[in-house]
């Protein structure tokens, strides 16, 4: 069993799916809730969430033990990660099938990234 990150990107200034009527929003929510229910039934869903925009981001650097903060995201870009799921899947084909369903439900392209390792470093250290 592998784990994959399914990430969706939002373009700055564009609220995902906007402009949305309340009806559109209700349909969107229904689709996503149905998708997540399907992920739950198949024990695919590990974690997921929608992120606030890059305006809410702070980057912390460490300078000889002293934290230095900077306002804004680490990468200055028009596109930012808007939300993600972490899923269990047997292989890439299964992950891609879930990504297809997620893209369909959200109307956004989904980037699929395999995890090199998951959990605490101590648990997988030495496994290569």
């Amino acid at each position: 069993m592998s784990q994959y990150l399914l990430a969706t990107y939002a373009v700055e200034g564009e609220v995902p799916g906007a402009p949305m009527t309340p009806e559109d929003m209700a349909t969107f929510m229904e689709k996503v809730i149905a998708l997540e229910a399907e992920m739950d039934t198949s024990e695919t869903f590990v974690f997921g969430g929608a992120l606030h925009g890059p305006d809410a981001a702070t980057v912390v650097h460490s300078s000889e033990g002293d934290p230095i903060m900077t306002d804004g995201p680490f990468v200055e870009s028009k596109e930012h990660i808007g939300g993600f799921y972490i899923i269990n899947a047997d292989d890439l084909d299964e992950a891609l099938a879930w990504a297809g369903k997620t893209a369909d439900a959200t109307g956004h392209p989904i980037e699929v990234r395999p995890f090199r390792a998951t959990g605490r470093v101590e648990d997988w250290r030495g496994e290569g």
Partner: protein
Amino acid sequence: MTPTVAHPEATDVESVFREVYGQAVATLVRVFGDITLAEDAVQDAFVVASDRWRSDGIPPNPAGWIVTTARNRAIDVLRRSARGRELHEQLGAVTSEEVGSGAEGREEDGPVRDDQLRLIFTCCHPSLRTEHQVALTLRLLGGLGVDEVARSFLVSESAMAKRLVRAKYKIKAANIPYRVPAEADLPDRLRSVLSVLYLIYNTGLDDPEQASLRSDAIRLARALVDLMPDEPEAAGLLALMLLSESRVPARTADGALVLLRDQDRSEWDRTMIEEGQGIVRACIRRDRPGPYQLQAAIQAVHCDADSVDVTDWPQIVALYDHLFSVMPTPVVALNRAIAIAEVEGPGAALTALDTIAPALDDYHLMHAARGTTLRRLGQRVAAKAAFERAVILAATEADRRFLAQQIEELAEDALR
């Protein structure tokens, strides 16, 4: 079955290697689940074989011999590494059950054939970029050396080695499965495999230095048809390649492309034409047409005719109409327009060409077709402009020479 040869030449051993490489790697990948380990082990087995076979002769089942030797090598490698010992224990049951002594015998044919099919689908997985799909297919299934694959792409050996490492890294990291896709995904995934093989063939067609890629592509397509006899599109692709290949001897003269209408048809390879046409007829009986079968059918009609004048052009236009309905691309529309010129005359063809011109403004063959059509309509100035635009866009030397000839002939027309 390869007959036992007592004291084979080095070249015989080479060609057997190339023949069995894909099969051996595919089986080792199934057993060990690791492409690099499988490749290294098969390489080692070839080194052993190249000594032994030259003195003892090529064994009756060289693939089985290589698989057994490579499997033993891989197990040795695994035993030597700490991580490998663990893996080896897990695999212990698998290796003895699945390969065991049977690898030497023909009864392994079934699973071994499936191994190759699985590996083709892994190499052509749509999550890999096209150039990686092609490189992996040539390397792992075609048995080409890294240097040979590099030459086919006009890149350095080290650049190709890096490309292959990256592609194999993704297969492993993303856990791209090693299996024939489920029924629902099969049409899409097979399309990806077929387009990789066709791309390999066309690379060999465009560049005379890479002619061997054409035979590699045909060999791989034959293997695919053998593995998936119920897939008419795989058969269609093989027929398309054979019919195209049959005309290669007449396709160029003095390094310049020769148009179908001007080719010396006695130079066409009748054996390949017969095989290709036989496949097309079988496809028609099966009646599950697709883009490759239709393109092969068009080529089969061309190959049926002794000259361009006795070609069944209405049949070709009808096939292009059918092809356009399943593959509505501007390039298909372009070829259809060229066929229309032979049925309805150059005026109708020009009208059709003008409709698709904006979509293909960067494609030299569109401008070449316009040039030819305008010339037939007596519009020499416009024809010259079209050919000149085509020369600038042409990618191969043969195309450029052909177009230069057209421009010269236009000048001669003017003097008449």
